[in-house]
């Protein structure tokens, strides 16, 4: 065949193939009904049982079908849910009145018996790496006053009752008696009282829901909801751009500009309850700090207050916000954001002052600084590794020669904890699921005490007994005003000590096609019922 004929023959074959592909895929994009919502989430749940595992992605899905007595609004403030009112009968007794018109999806009433059953069920779960009974342990007795009134009794005054109850979903005793967690995947037991009814669950793929038209609360705008799980960030964005989904959560930083500039897309963001912070090891000797010649040092420099102060004022948090986080971060010196219980408004972000930092180091006896390895995860928080690199360069500028060693969270978290304590300085994040500062105070900065359950994540061996005393008093104080003051004083002490260095609050992002609005949440959750057409 002549060259030209060959070329034409080849081209015709290719065109035919392309047409077949196009025809096959035509009309695969648009949604069927006008009131259908398809959302792409960033991590899949591993169980449909709302009591199985205290995992973010599981809870996020459960919130569509099930409800708790109390819930948190978009600012993580406590508001009524299934319980329309509550009161403290005495220091140890909480009484909750269940909504009269709250019904399960099978038509039966939500009763106090179901609430009691649900509370008990959390401790009966088997094979879970993180049960919800951490939130029900304080309840020693339950009294069913009448079908719509229940009393929960604690051994000691327990002000965290309300925030703990936000994590306990109420299931129907009738529907879930005798079921194992696996059974829920096929739909058995998926009888909740929430705004959506469960239809199906394809592991790692999607969850399908339909609207609960008998819902006691505001009816969601969508008759049908599909929650798809697309962990790969680029694919998630592509799904939105190709109109395969109507909304996504967690927009990757690389695509922020494109999405914000796009006329076909709407962008939403909110300061999250997750604070990104640094920890400085407080032990006598620390492994990853050496002098300029690489020799181990006699004394751990981080035990000196002046050194700790120098480390925090040499971090330019505004620059990190602008350059690394594309403006999506809120520099902070607090452990929780402004709307959470325990925020200290007068605690200001330290002013960036590298010269003062150098002077402090010299005063402390390190005029030439020292060498340090900064550790952290590289696949867990938004831009975690770039933040580490930025901080390392800022510290190097004041004389603390810093190199970064980032590793996957699975490896990092195993080594940073109280069992191994392998590092000298590191970056981590903490989201206060209970909506108040007692959570990070207890886990991150309290002196290690296994009996009290204090300092569970205090890998830096930091201990301030005065702050702990305030924390303990606050944990037993039922009066909110007094409690707030106690916690705030504790936070002030901890931040002043400077071993715990907050950098910024993360900002959570969502994107949707034009025509949909989202009410963004501080707790980073994505609820289909918070999306509304506009």
């Amino acid at each position, binding site marked *: 065949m002549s060259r030209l004929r060959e070329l034409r023959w080849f081209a015709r074959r290719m065109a035919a193939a392309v047409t077949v592909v196009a025809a*096959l895929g035509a009309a695969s994009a648009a949604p069927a009904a006008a009131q259908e919502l398809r959302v792409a989430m960033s991590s899949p749940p591993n169980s449909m049982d709302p009591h199985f595992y205290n995992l973010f992605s599981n809870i996020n899905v459960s919130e569509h079908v099930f409800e708790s007595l109390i819930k948190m609004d978009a600012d993580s403030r406590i508001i009524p849910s299934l319980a329309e009112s509550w009161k403290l009968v005495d220091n140890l007794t909480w009484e909750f009145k269940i909504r009269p018109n709250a019904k399960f999806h099978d038509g039966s009433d939500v009763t106090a018996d179901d609430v009691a059953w649900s509370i008990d069920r959390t401790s009966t779960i088997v094979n879970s790496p993180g*049960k919800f009974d951490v939130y029900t342990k304080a309840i020693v007795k339950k009294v069913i006053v009448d079908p719509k009134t229940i009393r929960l009794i604690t051994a000691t005054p327990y002000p965290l009752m309300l925030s703990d109850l936000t994590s306990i979903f109420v299931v129907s005793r009738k529907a879930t008696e005798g079921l194992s967690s696996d059974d829920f995947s096929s739909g058995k037991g998926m009888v909740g009282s929430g705004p959506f009814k469960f239809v199906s669950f*394809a592991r790692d*793929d999607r969850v399908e829901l339909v609207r609960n038209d008998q819902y006691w609360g505001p009816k969601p705008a969508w008759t049908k909801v599909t929650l798809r799980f697309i962990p790969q960030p680029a694919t998630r964005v592509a799904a939105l751009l190709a109109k395969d989904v109507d909304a996504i959560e967690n927009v990757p930083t690389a695509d922020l500009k494109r999405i914000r500039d796009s006329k076909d897309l709407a962008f939403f963001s909110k300061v999250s309850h997750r604070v990104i912070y640094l920890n400085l090891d407080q032990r006598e000797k620390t492994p990853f700090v050496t002098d300029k010649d690489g020799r181990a040092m006699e004394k751990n420099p981080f035990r000196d207050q002046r050194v700790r102060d120098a480390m925090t004022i040499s971090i330019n948090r505004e620059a990190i916000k602008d350059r690394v986080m594309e403006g999506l971060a809120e520099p902070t010196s607090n452990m929780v954001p402004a709307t959470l219980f325990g925020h200290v408004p007068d605690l200001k972000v330290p002013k960036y002052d590298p010269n003062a930092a150098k002077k402090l180091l010299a005063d402390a006896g390190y005029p030439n600084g020292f060498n340090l390895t900064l550790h952290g995860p590289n696949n867990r928080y938004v831009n975690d590794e770039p933040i580490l690199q930025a901080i390392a360069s800022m510290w190097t500028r004041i004389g603390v020669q810093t190199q970064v060693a980032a590793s996957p*969270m699975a490896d990092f978290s195993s080594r940073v904890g109280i069992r191994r304590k392998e590092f000298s300085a590191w970056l981590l994040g903490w989201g206060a699921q209970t909506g108040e500062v007692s959570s990070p105070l207890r*886990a991150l900065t309290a002196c290690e005490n296994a009996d009290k359950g204090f300092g569970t994540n205090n890998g830096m061996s930091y201990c301030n007994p005065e702050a702990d005393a305030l924390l303990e008093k606050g944990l037993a104080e039922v009066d909110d005003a007094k409690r707030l003051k106690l916690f705030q004083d504790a936070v002030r002490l901890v931040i002043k000590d400077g071993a715990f260095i907050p950098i910024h609050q993360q900002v959570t992002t969502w994107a949707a096609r034009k025509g949909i609005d989202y009410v963004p949440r501080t707790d980073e959750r994505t609820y289909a019922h918070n999306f509304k057409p506009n």
Partner: protein
Amino acid sequence: MAGTNGPQGLSVSGHIPQRGAAGWAAKPDPWRQPDKGKRRRTVTGSFLRLVQAMLAFIIRRVIQSFIVLLAMSVIVFAGVSALGDPVEVMTSPDSTQADREATRIAMGLDKPLPVQYWRFLSGALSGDLGKSFAYGAPAVDLILERMPATFELAIAAMLIAVVLGIPLGLWAGLKPDSIAGKTIMTGSILGFSLPTFWVGLMMIMLFSVHLGWLPTSGRGETVTVLGLKVSFLTRDGLVHLLMPALNLALFKLSLIIRLTRAGTQEALLQDYVKFARAKGLAPSRVVGVHVLKNIMIPIVTVIGLEFGGVIAFAIVTETIFAWPGMGKLIIDSIAVLDRPIIVAYLLVIVIMFVLINLIVDVLYSVLDPRVRLASE
């Protein structure tokens, strides 16, 4: 093909009766048992002999596989136990030290490593490879639940690679200097060198976002056939399967194109092709029957062995296209240090590789009559 050795374990020998060093000139040894007359070579007889040889071969293989599995289990178990602390990764942030200890005991991680391995082994012998830390369900069940999806993807990818690869390779081999031939070879180099991850994302951007022809990710509608969920029987399923399968097939496609081309070019130089042409056979018959049959053997071998590789590569494709298969399960499990699933998955993969190798070896002896399953 000239110079090819048979797959390991087989001998490519002609069936020539051995008469010792002296060969045909040797006198029969008077002390040997005389032949009990020439045994009649019946069809049933040779068939039974074949079956006997194959059975012996398979049994030998199965025993070897057990040893491989055992060795693998030790290596994998030891490796996975050095990977960090599952309790720290998975535990609820608000849990106390006491809660974490309880979780550690429930996961069996408080016992020393040999005890943990022994527990695992005793369970494994009865088919129980442990319960997943994160899911709470038996690891084997979770893997088998996801296997149909991965196999569907892998088989689709292999089909694309074979159905497209062999004709394209033949074409490139028959007309190496044509534009088509050169394009095919350049394309195959690209297929080799471009990373699957990047190609997948580019395909999504092109076909889904810009052209809107195909869906971005996920698995389509499934129908249950023989208890397994398959998606290639629905139009929606096919449309979702196309891009991931193509993405996965690219590497193998390039491999098969180059193999076929090389085989074709060599076969065309052989005497039997010249003889067939001289006989006056149609070119299509010469290529389609004689050349093809002779180059098939190494290609079949490679396809079989590479099938295991396709399952392995599927991890990347499944991650990009959010395809709910085994590969995605293993990546997620590694991220949270779900040891039972990691161990179970690797053992399942080893079993699969062993089975595939066995089938390929048996197939090889069937395809090539010169090969015998003997250990001579």
